[in-house]
């Protein structure tokens, strides 16, 4: 009787095994699928950005032989830089185009022809003459920046087979560019302007130089404030604070601040720093203050973990030979915890570098052409520059935005890698 029961149970189990193993396999596949999907998202994101942005690191130039005509530049021969800078440099870049395309005569066609060069091309010449006034009267082959539409055409982002009304470059212009190309006058060079120029409405002239400088000053302010304050707060809370309601309150506060939406910090910056204290809008100083408040929780939490990992025997040894508590902490505990604190600070800085929303609130979204020279000058930062360009309709800005993102991500990856290496190198297991 008992045996019969047993066989029946084992039969039941055996009968259900197939179904149960199938469920098991399904569940496992689901889990693997989730991991693969997650990894897929990461690669999709990076591939998308890279494929859109890599071409912005080169820029199309048109090689023209420019004659620095003294008649136009310096008719009186005074070599006065002020007067020369006011001369009509556009004539210089137009002349060689007219020579290459003598058949272009109508006003409209001429205007279209001149537009294959960027409006920044004459400024290139001004800078050259400013650097070397002896150029006046000489002939020289110069790579002039092409207009952004031409740049897109040469890089193949404009479909030549699309109907004429759906592309920004018409057939005549394409014909001209092809002729220039046959003569070997179209060159793509490394885009240095992208890294040193400030913002511009013309995609081919816009660069991230100003934004990088703004990010640099903002991070400088953030680092100068958040590192000492964060470390000091962590030292107090970990080494000196008595366990009471006050320190509990501070702890709860720090944990909550770490999860407050970043835009709320922007509201704080706007209401306090700008409206109440009257600090200048759009300044890296205010951005740095806001980001300091945002990154403090990260730094405090990391620094406390670092202090906690220093074994009590170190403290006891120091106290045992007669050091005061302050001496124990500053001479022995803090130096041992420093690598961990620095790692936390770098990670906090990486967060601050990628932060956008609070900086929109304090006016760092303004269109600023000049490269800031200090933390009080109005400026933008790298992620805000990405946001501003992402709003622009020109195809060329898509490419530049992606390139700016690539630069931003490279900075972040570099910082995080540095933090990981530092942790590996200096972390001590007690």
């Amino acid at each position, binding site marked *: 009787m008992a045996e019969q029961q047993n066989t029946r149970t084992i039969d039941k189990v055996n009968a259900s095994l197939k179904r149960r193993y199938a469920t098991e396999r399904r569940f496992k596949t689901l889990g693997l699928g989730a*991991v693969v999907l997650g*990894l897929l998202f990461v690669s999709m994101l990076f591939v998308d950005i890279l494929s859109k942005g890599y071409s912005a690191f080169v820029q199309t130039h048109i090689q023209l032989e420019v004659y620095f005509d003294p008649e136009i530049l310096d008719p009186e021969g005074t070599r006065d830089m002020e007067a020369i800078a006011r001369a009509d440099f556009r004539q210089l870049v137009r002349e060689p185009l007219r020579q290459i395309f003598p058949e272009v005569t109508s006003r409209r066609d001429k205007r279209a022809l001149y537009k294959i060069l960027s409006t920044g091309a004459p400024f290139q010449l001004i800078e050259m003459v400013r650097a070397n006034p002896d150029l006046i009267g000489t002939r020289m082959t110069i790579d002039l920046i092409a207009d952004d539409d031409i740049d897109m055409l040469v890089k193949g982002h404009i479909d030549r087979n699309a109907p004429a009304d759906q592309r920004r470059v018409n057939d005549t212009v394409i014909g001209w560019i092809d002729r220039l190309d046959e003569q070997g006058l179209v060159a793509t060079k490394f885009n240095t302007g992208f890294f040193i120029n400030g913002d511009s409405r013309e995609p081919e002239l816009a660069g991230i130089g100003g934004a990088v400088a703004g990010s640099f000053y903002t991070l400088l302010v953030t680092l100068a404030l958040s590192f000492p304050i*964060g470390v000091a707060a962590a030292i107090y809370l970990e080494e000196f604070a008595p366990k009471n309601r006050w320190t509990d309150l501070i702890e709860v506060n720090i944990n909550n601040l770490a999860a407050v939406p970043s*835009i709320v910090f922007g509201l704080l910056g706007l209401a306090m720093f700008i409206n109440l204290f009257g600090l200048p809008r759009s300044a890296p100083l205010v951005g740095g203050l806001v980001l300091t408040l945002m990154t403090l929780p990260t730094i405090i939490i990391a620094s406390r973990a670092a202090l906690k990992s220093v074994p009590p025997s170190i403290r006891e040894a120091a106290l045992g030979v007669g050091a005061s508590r302050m001496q124990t902490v500053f001479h022995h505990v803090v130096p041992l915890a420093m690598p961990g604190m620095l790692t936390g600070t770098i990670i906090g800085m990486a967060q601050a570098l*990628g932060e956008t929303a609070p900086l929109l609130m304090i006016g760092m979204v303004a269109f600023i052409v000049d490269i800031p020279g200090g933390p009080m000058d109005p400026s933008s930062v790298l992620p805000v520059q990405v946001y501003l360009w992402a709003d622009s309709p020109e195809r060329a800005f898509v490419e530049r935005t992606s390139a700016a*993102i690539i630069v931003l991500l490279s900075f972040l990856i570099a910082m995080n890698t540095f933090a990981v290496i530092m942790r590996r190198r200096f972390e001590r297991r007690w």
Partner: protein
Amino acid sequence: MQFSVLILVLLGVMAVAFHVGRRRSFATVGGPTGVRKLHSLPAYYGFYTALWAGLPALLIAGVWVFFDGTVITAMVVEAMPAEMRDLPPAQLGLLVNDITNLANGNIVSGEVTPAMQSAADHLNELRALGGTALAVVALSIALGAGSLAWRAIGPKMRARNRVEWIVSGLLIACSLIAILTTIGIVLSVLFESFRFFQKIPFTDFLFGLEWSPQVALREDQVGASGAFGAVPLFAGTLLISFIALLVAVPIGLMSAIYLADYAGPRLRSYAKPVLEVLAGVPTVVYGFFAALTLAPAIRQAGEFMGLSVSSESALAAGLVMGIMIIPFVSSLSDDVINAVPQSLRDAAYALGATRSETIRQVVLPAALPGIMGGILLAASRAIGETMIVVMAAGLSANLTANPLDSVTTVTVQIVTLLVGDQEFDSAKTLAAFALGLVLFVVTLGLNIVALHIVRKYREQYE
């Protein structure tokens, strides 16, 4: 420029004070041979003098710089002719702006009247005066306090204890900044919201169904009703956050389970950091991805299936936001799943359960509170997320549950209301602060509940 010079000078004074204080400690005991008669190490006497020379002056300088802009502006306004002073606040603000620009030598928007010119000159005068006065005050305080400290040095003085007392005061002050920040956030948001609720009733804001914050400048203006009902914003925020959680929770949870219980150590050591990369990518990058890659793709797919999809659909923003919060869900779930004791798993295996049965019937129920906490934290992230929705979601406040439609969110409205030129007393600007208040309260509530659940659960197995 002047201010940074002053700071450098003060730092120099501190260095000198350190040196002088240390020398005096030697002098009072008759040279280096008498060091043992001193109460503290000589350097502490130096630190003591330096701290007294530097700290009060730096403190005064800091407070001064924070407030001198406001004070000087008030003084300039005070000195203006009566007809300029009595302008309504908004116009007065513009005027003061012009005067500041004039004083800085920038371009001025309107015409420069002699009165403005004189006000600008007055401003420059006051600024120069203020700079000099600050320098004089700060330096005399530095020298005065420093020399007092210097005179007090003697072999009996307990310099180390005093220095340590000051340093621990500084440490406490630094740790109080966290509390000050919270108070600052609450005050700044609450104060402006209070002004907003004086103009718009609280209930209209919280329960109103229409949102169009354009306040009419003229009586008869069309399309500027100035309605401040925030329900469509709340609905939009919830819709997008819901979509995000719908993406992030299954993927995050399943990958956490797989990595914790199935994956070998090699896959685990590679896949985990790669997934966490998603948390480190700046949100503006996700926004760009959503607006320029995913939204057009969804639109094309919709057109292909014959659906009308808005180009700023809630779906695109929600999906990308979901990708962003996957690592939050997965790493928090991973922590709690790993915290479930192995003995529970072993017991289930011993009874003949398969791995998936163990996970679903033993591990997950045990880890559930922690997982819920993680999901709540992820939800508060999603609600407070700004850049993705600013770039990929719409501006029109539609009250809809259709994910293919365009909706707007609380954060989008805060940004659109506050970016650009603004005057600080219109209901439009103040509304942003009221929205900020709601955002702060909701996310704070979610965080407190989530942290409470997580902490309470963790204690159970320890």
